[in-house]
């Protein structure tokens, strides 16, 4: 490999040609004897193995619990669960809220992504920054803030004089309320997936259509959106599965009216005592997993039929001038941000500044005691910041580093095995966190077979669950990024002699870097606040922010919880802003809030 022939490009060296030809042919003959694609297959096997361990193993253990509790095969649990009408009611509710939430998330997320990516609105980077921030606030907090804003004690409504009378039913305690909050919660997910992809849209494609006389709406419908199909579908799939597996929002808004969805039903079963509780939980989880997989299969089949490649070497497009519509659009965007970010943030801050719940905030009652307690008196909270940051950052980096070669094989080396791998990665994200935690406990309770090390009750079991759960958050955007790549770019580097590792490093990674970064960000923000997994898996010293928040909330210490929430937001914002310092060294498009 790499033998330097002495041939120059002038005909004078014809005398040497014959010997060089024979040298080359000998080399080729030797090379032809090498077993085919050895290194590629090795990498693929390793990748598939890791996915199997992360995604399949915990769930296989759980399924085993569902069909063979205590080691004896039995279909009792399955029969009980499937025969109960509550199961099907919950399934129907889950589907309804998942579809509704996804629809709303997609509409809002796409609209904002298009405005930010394709028009000439001002303050674009600030809009992106603020629109992404709600991911930092725990879903329960968002739901609570909205609940209070629509209730009789809402300061906003009181100001408007439209506060409902004490005792009227809060409209958010309904399927509609759940859909609304779910949609708002996950719109940034769709937004992030689309934003990275919109950068690759070549200006000329849109300008050609505009020059041809097509009105902007038509261009959007017939050119932009079809080209953005892979990331759009990725966003849809992600938000569908997120809505399906979300526990916090239907817990807050659905429990009061007994509007049960599958995650809350699982929680009910866990709370209800009685024998065989784990196997019923396992069966219900399999149900959620099946629904998630069906959704992904549907998405896959839509992606497969068409070609979405963009051979782009052009500058990103910003072709739509809004003119008269610019100010109204900016106002609309900032109003939206006001609702989804400012509202819950204000509620959080207000609560964190009062000494106890229900005390109205005034100059006399305002206090920083809650912050003092959380920062100085509560060692667990400090540890939680360090733990959560370490776990989230590690998970983000490891998953994305793993997703890039995995996506390479998934998109460009199709096979049935790989399709199955693709589907399997969805499941740990779709099932409620408490289920994955239980599966991890079952798996890692005893020391690992060969190594003899126990992961249980350490921070490593939490990391394992994060890797398993959030793999799909990193994988989907990267897969969408590959779908938009022109494969000849890789083929050209193959022809130049580069083997797979070098091709990944020098050609592919720079090109998928924006979408990979979107995935990493998504993972970090989601994991930072994550609650349901660590609630079961943490132990002294390995607290996460979610755990501390949850225990404050449950114990009636909402003010401490609020202070913790505010501190979380401040720290995350500081982190996000600090990325701007290194922004120059990153490839373009990696940071969504920087052009």
């Amino acid at each position, binding site marked *: 490999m790499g033998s330097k022939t002495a*041939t120059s490009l002038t005909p004078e060296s014809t005398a040497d040609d014959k010997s060089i030809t024979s040298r080359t042919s000998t080399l080729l003959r030797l090379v032809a004897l090498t077993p085919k694609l050895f290194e590629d297959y090795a990498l693929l096997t390793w990748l598939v193995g890791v996915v199997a361990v992360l995604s399949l193993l915990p769930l296989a253990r759980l399924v085993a619990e569902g069909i063979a509790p205590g080691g004896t095969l039995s279909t009792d649990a399955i029969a009980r669960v499937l025969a109960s009408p509550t199961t099907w009611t919950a399934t129907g509710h889950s589907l309804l809220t998942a579809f509704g939430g996804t629809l709303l998330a997609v509409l809002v997320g796409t609209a904002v992504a298009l405005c930010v990516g394709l028009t000439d609105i001002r303050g674009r980077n600030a809009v992106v920054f603020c629109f992404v921030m709600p991911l930092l606030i725990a879903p329960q907090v968002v739901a609570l803030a909205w609940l209070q804003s629509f209730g009789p004690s809402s300061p906003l409504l009181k100001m408007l004089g439209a506060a409902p009378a004490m005792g009227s039913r809060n409209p958010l305690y309904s399927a509609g309320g759940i859909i609304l909050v779910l949609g708002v919660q996950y719109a940034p997910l769709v937004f992030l997936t689309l934003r990275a992809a919109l950068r690759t849209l070549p200006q000329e494609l849109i300008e050609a259509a505009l020059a041809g006389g097509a009105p902007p709406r038509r261009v959007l419908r017939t050119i932009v959106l079809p080209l953005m199909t892979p990331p759009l579908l990725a966003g849809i799939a992600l938000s569908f599965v997120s809505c399906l597996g979300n526990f916090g929002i239907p817990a807050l808004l659905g429990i009061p009216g007994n509007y049960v969805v599958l995650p809350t039903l699982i929680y009910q079963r866990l709370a209800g005592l009685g024998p065989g509780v784990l196997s019923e939980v396992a069966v219900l989880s399999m149900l959620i997993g099946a629904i998630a997989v069906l959704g992904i299969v549907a998405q896959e089949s839509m992606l497969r039929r068409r070609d979405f490649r963009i051979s782009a070497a052009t500058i990103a497009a910003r072709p739509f001038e809004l003119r008269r519509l610019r100010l109204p659009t900016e106002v609309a965007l900032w109003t939206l941000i006001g609702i989804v970010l400012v509202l819950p943030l204000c509620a959080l801050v207000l609560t964190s500044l009062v000494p106890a719940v229900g005390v109205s905030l005034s100059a006399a009652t305002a206090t920083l005691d809650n912050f003092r307690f959380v920062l100085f008196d509560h060692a667990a909270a400090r540890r939680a910041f360090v733990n959560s940051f370490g776990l989230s950052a590690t998970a983000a980096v490891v998953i994305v580093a793993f997703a890039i070669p995995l996506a390479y094989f998934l998109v460009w080396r199709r096979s049935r095995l790989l399709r199955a791998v693709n589907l399997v990665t969805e499941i740990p994200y779709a099932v409620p966190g408490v289920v994955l935690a239980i599966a991890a406990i079952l798996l890692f309770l005893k020391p690992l077979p060969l190594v003899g090390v126990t992961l249980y009750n350490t921070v490593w079991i939490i990391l394992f669950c994060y890797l398993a759960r959030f793999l799909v958050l990193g994988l989907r955007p990267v897969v969408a990024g590959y779908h938009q790549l022109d494969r000849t770019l890789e083929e*050209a580097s193959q022809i130049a002699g580069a*083997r797979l590792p070098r091709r990944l490093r020098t050609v592919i990674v720079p090109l998928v870097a924006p979408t990979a970064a979107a995935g990493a960000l998504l993972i970090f923000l989601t994991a930072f606040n994550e609650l349901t997994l660590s609630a079961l898996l943490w132990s002294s010293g390995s607290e996460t922010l979610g755990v501390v928040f949850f225990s404050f909330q449950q114990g009636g210490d909402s003010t401490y919880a609020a202070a913790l929430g505010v501190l979380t937001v401040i720290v995350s914002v500081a982190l996000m802003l600090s990325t701007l310092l290194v922004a120059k060294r990153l490839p373009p498009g990696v940071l969504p809030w920087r052009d």
Partner: protein
Amino acid sequence: MARLTIDHLVKRYGEFRALDDVSLTVDDGEFVAILGPSGCGKTTLLRQIAGFDKPDAGSVRIGDAVVSTPGQHVPPERRRIGIVFQSYALWPHMTVAENVGYGLDVAGVKDPERRQRVNAALALVELEGFADRRPALLSGGQRQRVALARCLVTEPSLVLLDEPLANLDVHLRAAMEREFARFHERTGTTMVYITHDQAEAMALADRIAVMDRGRILQLATPSVLYREPADDTVARFIGEGMVVPVAGVARDGDATCTADVFGHRVRMRCDAGARIGGEAHACLRDNALRVVNGATPGVRATITSIVYQGGRFRLDAAPERAPGVPLHFGVAEPCSLRPGDSVTLAIDDGWVLPGWVTRASGR
């Protein structure tokens, strides 16, 4: 430099045969064009040669080494060939110099030799001074040349070109054709050139393989293809030949014969060894048709369209005997004919297409 041997190559996609028993040999240093309409399989063939796909049957050899069979496959990165892609496939995140020098980086060539070779390659394609530009800021022609430079810098034994001029405008095309020709002359690299444009193929290639529906219809020099096409498809594809039915074919010499074209007896060329007689198809070239005055014997036809082509006119005509078989020919300026006029055409030359079963002999 290497010889390329393709031996009974078959590639199937489900029921569809993209390559149907294709065999081809390109000698050391030869320039072969693979010519055919869209969907004929030429890109599939190129991908087989490059190693991006594996065959279902047959083999590909570069030099003496077998690189592709159903059971054995040398990956593209080890074949030491070069490709110029239709879309150029320049890496947008690298400068021109980084694009061109990529293959050298892979081979471990370091500065100053690396920089020297990159600059030499850029000089070869007349892009010195462009080393630090990004592909996004180059024109189509410049990108084309960067792609060529990138291909050349590693001095491959075989260069494949996938419709490289398809995205360029007409003026640029002519210049690039000269560029490729000059390059081939200077280096003697074996080149395989994929195209659907027969003028390009005729101008550049030593031999041309005409492909249609996964098969090679004829492999010959441009002149032979032009003068002696093997069948209807080749005849129509090259030089826009006209295929007309002829009757009463009778040999009247070693390589000549006479035949009835629309009722007019014409002397044509024919294959020396073939059995001919009775009905057949013949290929007429537009420069073999001539307008004569009405008294001279010839084929009567009605003009259907006249198109000015700068100094000359192209006329399309429908023979009275067979209006469904269009003829076309050229007339120098000035031309007083109008559509609808009736003319008599003399046919000076034609070629009887071989491979026609003679009904008379009933074989």
